[in-house]
């Protein structure tokens, strides 16, 4: 198993796609910081009730809020990139026909697919860590330049909270990554995996909002889908209020009567396990023929 993991690492490390996806995530963090920092000096008041000032926004970009903001980016846009990575890791093997090469060189198909999942997970973690590192570095500059050099917040509690937020974000990404991976296995292509994963990530919130307009049982169905439960988990991350929020906040979720964080975690875990189990089942049982790659 270790050698299969090493082989997968070797292949993905040498692949341009991996670095492009990492660069996109890091670039997005840099872009958002730059945009927000530059507009913070121009806006007067903003927010739903005009409750924030440009100064609030600038302070939100300080070091204290850097990790939750990076995690918000990673949990939304990063998840999309992770879906592409997962789908590409398995789908390309079918496109190139290397699925046969690796299947005959590995000590079992179950182990091979497990090795791929481990490597995709590890690279996803590395990507999120890279996003955090860039955000921390950028916000350290903002903090220094704008005179926010008070580092009293660096307590054990703060570090514990950041670590928890990191875990929550990765947990929320897992069913999406598993979906992209599983769909790539079943569809035998990167396009099938990426298309399904990204499609669900984008379309599900739209469909859910339509369902919520209807009466029972329609309005309750979104509570058992991915997006609403992901929102519940990510809402636990302490994002500075002045920063833009890409997902539903606590108030909105309360209105929607979505699950408790524990319930949401159960739903997301069930999806992740189901998608992975399906991928493993199909990959280990299905014939690998010339037409399948």
């Amino acid at each position, binding site marked *: 198993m270790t*050698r*299969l993991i*090493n*082989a997968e690492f*070797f*292949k993905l490390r*040498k*692949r*341009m796609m991996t670095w492009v996806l990492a660069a996109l995530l890091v670039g997005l963090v840099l872009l958002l910081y730059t945009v927000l920092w530059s507009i913070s000096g121009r806006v007067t008041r903003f927010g739903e009730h005009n409750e924030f000032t440009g100064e609030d926004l600038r302070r939100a970009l300080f070091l204290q809020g850097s990790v939750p903001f990076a995690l918000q980016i990673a949990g939304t846009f990063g998840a999309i990139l992770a879906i592409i990575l997962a789908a590409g890791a398995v789908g390309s093997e079918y496109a*190139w*026909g*290397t699925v*046969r*090469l*690796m*299947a*005959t*060189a*590995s*000590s*079992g198909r179950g182990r091979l697919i497990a090795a791929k999942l481990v490597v995709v997970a590890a690279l996803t973690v590395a990507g999120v860590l890279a996003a955090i590192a860039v955000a921390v570095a950028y916000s350290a500059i903002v903090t220094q330049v704008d005179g926010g050099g008070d580092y009293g917040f660096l307590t054990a509690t703060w570090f514990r909270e950041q670590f928890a937020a990191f875990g929550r974000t990765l947990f929320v990404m897992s069913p999406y990554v598993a979906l992209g991976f599983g769909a790539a296995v079943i569809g035998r292509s990167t396009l099938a995996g990426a298309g399904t994963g990204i499609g669900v990530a984008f379309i599900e919130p739209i469909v859910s909002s339509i369902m919520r307009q209807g009466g029972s049982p329609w309005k309750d169905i979104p509570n058992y889908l991915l997006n609403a439960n992901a929102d519940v988990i990510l809402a636990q991350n302490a994002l500075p209020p002045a920063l833009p929020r890409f997902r539903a906040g606590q108030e909105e979720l309360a209105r929607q009567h979505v699950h408790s964080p524990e319930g949401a975690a159960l739903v997301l875990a069930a999806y992740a396990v189901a998608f992975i189990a399906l991928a493993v089942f199909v990959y280990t*049982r299905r*014939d*690998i*023929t*010339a037409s399948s*790659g």
Partner: protein
Amino acid sequence: MSQRREILRTEGLSKKYGSLTAVADLDLCVYAAEVFSFLGPNGSGKSTTVGMILGLVRPTRGRAVVFGDDVARRPWPALRRVGAVIETPAFYPYLSGYDNLRALAIALGDVPPGRIEQALETVGLRERGRDPYKTYSLGMKQRLGIASTLLRDPDLIILDEPTNGLDPAGTREVRELIPQLARAGHAVFLCSHLLHEVQAVSDRVAIVKRGRLIAEGTVDELIGRGQHLRLRAEDNGALARALGGVPWVTGVEHVDGYVRATAPVARAAELNRALAAQGVYVAELSPWQEELESVFLELTGEEAGA
């Protein structure tokens, strides 16, 4: 043969895709240090059979036993001792030839240091080993495929159309390499359309048609080497009638201006005397050089060049 070490055995191996039978009740046996060629027209189930031997395709019935293990149930460690190039070799296009072999070596785990360079050297790719695979010609890809089989020093090498895309020099190199592999103790399971090549390198041959085994034996057995004589006389009709009068001549045919007699080549002189005794004097008498290709075409009912 029974004293030789058995490497691969298929027992009633069958595969159906819906109502289509791709392989039916295939019984084969491949021994150590032999070149076993597996022939058949397109769509005759060769690749499906190879897929089942490699554990890529699940048999509907029967089993493929490699080094004593049923590969459908226990593919590893049996497959660790098998190197295979299946149809067109497939590698990672963004990696160099060297890095492709390195990725494979990491996955295999027991490839000795220097083996990658050695394998590239063996197939004549050392100079281009660091170039991206996507820049390789088809012939180079085939060579890399063969190099990949040599990485683990396998006991069984499966080569599916190994000379596909190779130039004449490359084809000759592969043709020379295959018996070398057998002499080095590897069993070679060869699928090829180039029947002249197969005839030149094979110890035994199996021919399949529509998934069924229709002939198996040594090349000599299949082409009837030593069992046919080619004769020509001024009057081939009289020659054929005279041959019919010889009790140990078991068959007479007219082929391309010659008479083909089914009789032991070792008794050619005796046959000449018997014909002369009947007043028939032959202008030519020689062993009939049958080609595997014509046997294949006759057995499979294929048109030449199909």
